[in-house]
């Protein structure tokens, strides 16, 4: 009886811990899940990428532009986060909005040299995702649905955001 009680308590504690880990940090909103809009673009090397071809894991889709000051603040934190969470299966996919390849390349070389970006030269893909502004971040779940969005620039390399993202990937792996 005592063993059963201990097991029950442990289970409850585990559930509470998991729920806490999944709480979105400040500025990250849980949204009603909706299918991610089409995202099929080329990167700086001309390689084509399609979001629809990447099911089964979490994807952070991040829209940015070189003229946006918060993007400049946020980009190094995304790079650091991507490095720290490389073992989780989280895919980080940047989309530059309506700038040319040279501008995007120069910006990333200065602010986040380890990151690569897709190019949305005419801004059509960005429009389809309907961000509230730039920068804009969406978290797409393993079934291709947008489940969270971030408001403005965030420090993705801080413990609250790292823990949250890690918990998402662990949750989907259970």
């Amino acid at each position, binding site marked *: 009886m005592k063993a059963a009680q201990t097991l029950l308590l442990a289970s409850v504690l585990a559930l509470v811990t998991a729920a806490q880990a999944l709480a979105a940090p400040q500025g990250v909103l849980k949204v009603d899940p909706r299918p991610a809009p089409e995202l099929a673009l080329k990167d700086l090397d001309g390689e084509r990428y399609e979001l629809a071809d990447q099911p089964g894991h979490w994807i952070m889709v991040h829209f940015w532009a070189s003229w946006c000051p918060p993007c*400049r603040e946020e980009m190094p934190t995304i790079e650091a986060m991507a490095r720290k969470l490389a073992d989780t299966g989280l895919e980080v996919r940047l989309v530059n*909005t*309506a700038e040319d390849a040279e501008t995007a390349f120069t910006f990333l070389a200065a602010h986040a040299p380890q990151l690569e970006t897709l190019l949305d030269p*005419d801004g059509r893909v960005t429009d389809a995702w309907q961000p509230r502004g730039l*920068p804009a971040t969406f978290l797409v779940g393993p079934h291709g649905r947008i489940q969270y969005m971030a*408001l403005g620039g965030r420090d993705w390399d801080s413990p609250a955001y790292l823990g949250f993202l890690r918990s998402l990937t662990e949750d989907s792996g259970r």
Partner: protein
Amino acid sequence: MSTRPTSPPPILAAACLGLSVMLHAAVATAQLPEEHETGNHGLRLRVMERTPAQIAAFYEARGFPEQAIARLREACFLTVTLDNQRDDRLALERWRFLANGEPLERRDRAYWQTQWQALGLSRGSRATFGWTLMPESRELYPTEPVAGNITLAPTRQPFTLVARLRTAADDVLSLRLRDIECAGREG
């Protein structure tokens, strides 16, 4: 509550979508624009006057053609930042600009679309321009900032900006900044 000039606030990780840094950098040798700031009701409103030279430098650097730059130089540009520091959601209902109690003529998105269509501006440039404009209305989440440029017909009169927001409880919040000017239009 309006102050001019003010020093820029600290840049936050969750910073606004403002264009201040790059516009300051765009014309490093130009005289810094006037800045105005006020805070009330858990909101912070900041306005930076932009000179035609600053605006031209910014959009030239983004590949805008000469004809488009000429149109941009004709308008009065303000970079506006509104930061919701409250823990509730707010509806930003409208911006108003008044000189001697009369509303000023705006240069809204529809106006610019007409200009860009007439000039055959590329879709990419139109997209960039659109993202640099301030939304006219917006539901602001807790801690959410919103920022961008607001454009007006040029005027030499000082004017007042009024931002009006509504809470979920239907209370109306109003912020005012006085003595704003269209920069670089003296004489």
